[in-house]
């Protein structure tokens, strides 16, 4: 009876150890992928900096208003393992297109305002009709500017309107890194959990072995 019990506990211990090793191997693989992706991201960022200028793509250009475009959901499973998975915030896509349209509209009126000032200096004796036209366009400008108060959400635009392709590549690398980091966080949690289980199983086995040896000694004494 005792032998079968100890055999069973040894088998469970082996299973857990194998699972632990598999998890560690997977963790190492994912770590390697994460490191490679981060390196790729930095390389693309450096390329972007090479074409945009040395001082570009720096912390000074971060927006003053930021909203997260990605969030992570943490779910604690029955065995105590925490599962992390990322989710992109979808609402921002529609907002972004709306803001794009606004920013495009905004360029026109600004130029018109400048042109008007130049005209007023040079052509003082210009006919009233043209002045009326500009004054008519002016009130249309104001509401558009007022409505454009919402902060920009696309981080690429912090660094310029027309950013190089390499910066977009850097962004996509880092997006993958974020997803992978959530997977690694979940894996780390399961590795630590399996380690804890192994520790408990080892202690159980030791207790069983001690009991078995004590019983054997009793038998020998009899």
């Amino acid at each position: 009876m005792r032998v079968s019990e100890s055999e069973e506990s040894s088998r469970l211990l082996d299973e857990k150890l194998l699972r632990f090793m598999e998890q560690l191997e997977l963790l190492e693989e994912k770590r390697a992928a994460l490191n490679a992706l981060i390196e790729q991201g930095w390389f693309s960022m450096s390329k972007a900096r090479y074409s945009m200028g040395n001082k570009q793509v720096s912390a000074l250009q971060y927006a003053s208003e930021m909203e997260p475009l990605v969030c992570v959901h943490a779910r604690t499973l029955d065995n105590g393992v925490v599962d992390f998975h990322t989710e992109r915030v979808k609402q921002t896509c529609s907002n972004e297109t709306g803001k794009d349209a606004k920013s495009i509209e905004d360029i026109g009126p600004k130029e018109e305002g400048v042109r008007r000032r130049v005209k007023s200096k040079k052509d003082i004796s210009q006919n009233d009709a043209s002045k009326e036209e500009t004054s008519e366009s002016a009130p249309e400008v104001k509401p558009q500017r007022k409505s454009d108060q919402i902060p920009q959400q696309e981080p690429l635009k912090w660094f310029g309107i027309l950013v190089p392709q390499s910066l977009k590549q850097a962004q996509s690398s880092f997006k993958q890194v974020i997803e992978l980091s959530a997977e690694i966080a979940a894996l780390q949690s399961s590795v630590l959990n399996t380690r804890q289980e192994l520790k408990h199983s080892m202690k159980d086995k030791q207790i069983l072995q001690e009991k078995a040896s004590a019983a054997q000694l009793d038998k020998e004494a009899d």
Partner: protein
Amino acid sequence: MAGRGKLIAVIGDEDTCTGFLLGGIGELNKNRKPNFLVVEKDTSITEIEETFRSFLARNDIGIILINQFIAEMIRHAIDAHLQSIPAVLEIPSKEHPYDASKDSILRRAKGMFSAEDFR
């Protein structure tokens, strides 16, 4: 906020932070507190540690990403954090490649083969 899920925080050098912010993790909350810290040459260890502890205390943060060379500076604080949420992930930096032997989690996992476990 709670229904939307948790945030990912970053403590790292300029390029690491810029990269992750490009990925869309950046947030400035109502008190204008960011979920990232750009560590520069003149950033003190106390400041790093305080920021790390403030991230641990925030319940809207799910994962903290930290450059390994910065994690080395506040190793005691990272080793003392045993909860699963927020998870702490050590990542490489441009000048310092990732070293698995320094990683808190892997060192903890390795600990199972120490003599103490067999006693």
